């Protein structure tokens, strides 16, 4: 579903953020990307739907080359759901309108159809009652669940999560993770940048560990948690799992 091969990215000639990253995500797979901050994991996931450009290498999403200038990027992006660390709901639109905007303007769905789809997804994330409210009137956890619903409204073939729980108060993390776990169990293809190792243990198929712009470890979940091969991954795991 996602094929990343030999991707390099520089912010300046001397500052390389991604070094020869190669991996893939197959259909129905849940891949967790972790690593210390500044390791390039958010940058890598943003390269997948071309929110960040990269200088060499290739990324294919469902067979379409992301870095091909001829690719219809808006169309490709509309099939790739993305959830951000800071939710990024549109503050001037009601919750339901946040869910309908791209359905109507990008997919060309009729208003009624988009509304019905939106309400159905809000019900799924447990926020049907909030449909007529504005984002600023919701808690962080609720906003992130709306953001997930907004991405799902586009019927994505794959979902990207960029640290979806990092900006949340601790008591709101689980309500968001619950939605993501359900999604994973339904067979959604997911690439998730997160520090939530509990989530990774529960639903991930594979774990990718990144450090200083490199993919240091790319292993099945049990291998990664059981016997990480690299020192850096071991150190990282011992730090975040010691509490």
């Amino acid at each position, binding site marked *: 579903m996602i094929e990343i091969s030999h991707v390099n990215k520089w912010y300046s000639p001397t500052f390389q953020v991604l070094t020869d990253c190669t991996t893939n995500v197959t259909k129905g797979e849940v891949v967790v990307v972790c690593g210390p901050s500044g390791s390039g994991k958010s940058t890598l996931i943003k390269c997948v739907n071309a929110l960040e450009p990269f200088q060499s290498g290739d990324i294919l999403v469902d067979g379409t080359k992301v870095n091909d200038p001829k690719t219809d990027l808006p169309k490709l992006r509309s099939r790739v759901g*993305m959830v951000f660390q800071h939710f*990024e709901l549109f503050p001037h639109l009601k919750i339901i309108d946040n869910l309908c905007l791209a359905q109507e303007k990008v997919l060309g769905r009729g208003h009624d159809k988009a509304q019905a789809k939106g309400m159905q997804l809000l019900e799924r994330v447990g926020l049907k009652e909030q449909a007529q409210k504005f984002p600023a009137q919701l808690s962080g956890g609720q906003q992130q669940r709306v953001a997930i619903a907004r991405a799902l409204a586009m019927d994505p073939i794959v979902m990207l999560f960029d640290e979806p729980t990092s900006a949340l108060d601790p008591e709101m993390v689980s309500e968001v993770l619950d939605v993501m776990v359900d999604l994973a169990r339904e067979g959604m293809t997911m690439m998730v940048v997160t520090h939530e190792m509990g989530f990774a243990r529960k639903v991930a198929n594979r774990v990718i560990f990144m450090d200083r712009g490199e993919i240091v470890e790319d292993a099945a979940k049990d291998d990664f948690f059981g016997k990480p091969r690299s020192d850096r991954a071991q150190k990282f795991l011992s730090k975040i799992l010691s509490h």
Partner: protein
Amino acid sequence: MNYNWNWGIFFQPNPMGTGTYLDMLLSGLVLTLKTAALAWVIALITGSIVGVMRTLPSKGANWFGFAYVEFFRNMPLLVQLFLWFFVLPEILPKAAGLWLKQLPNAPFWTAAIGVGFFMSARVAVQLQAGISSLPRGQRMAATALGLTTVQGYRYVLLPMAFRIILPPLTSEFLNTIKNTAVAITIGLLELTGQARSMQEFSFQVFEAFTAATILYLLVNAVVVTAMRFLERWVAIPGYITGK
């Protein structure tokens, strides 16, 4: 000071035979309002386009926006009006220059366009600041949903940016109205111009300019009140100062 106050002067006939002196001032007020209205429309439209260009991910567009703003905001308004009115017709091909000079209401069109362009540079800077003040993720979220750049601005960035800059835009609107007074120098008989001719015909300088002052204050009070209502009308529940 030896001055004969005569507040009754407003109801005496003016020497042009167009009614009373008050009628003279009011006709000036109407011209001020017409000039300001057209100038503000020009300032808002061109200012918005240039302001957006300054935030586009295109070097060419940024450069054009930069050059436009610096050109129109770094020259005194008076000099700009003289350039449009006296210099432009001379440097154009002869026929075009002649056509310009013989244009009916030339001072009106020159003033509206001149003040409009001058103010558009200021609107552009305000709008650029408004767009830049939005979280970077807003643009990303719009892009990730598959919205095109135009759609992203239309449905996501501009609705928020304009809300944020409404208070400074009110100031720019008031400045537009006040700046039309400069048009007296190219012979436009707007409010200040009519107050000046009333002074010359009647020698009642204090009465004339007291009346002009009050009329300017009244007009601007109406604008300020209207903009307040607009601010309240578009306020977003729960957001910043919203209820």
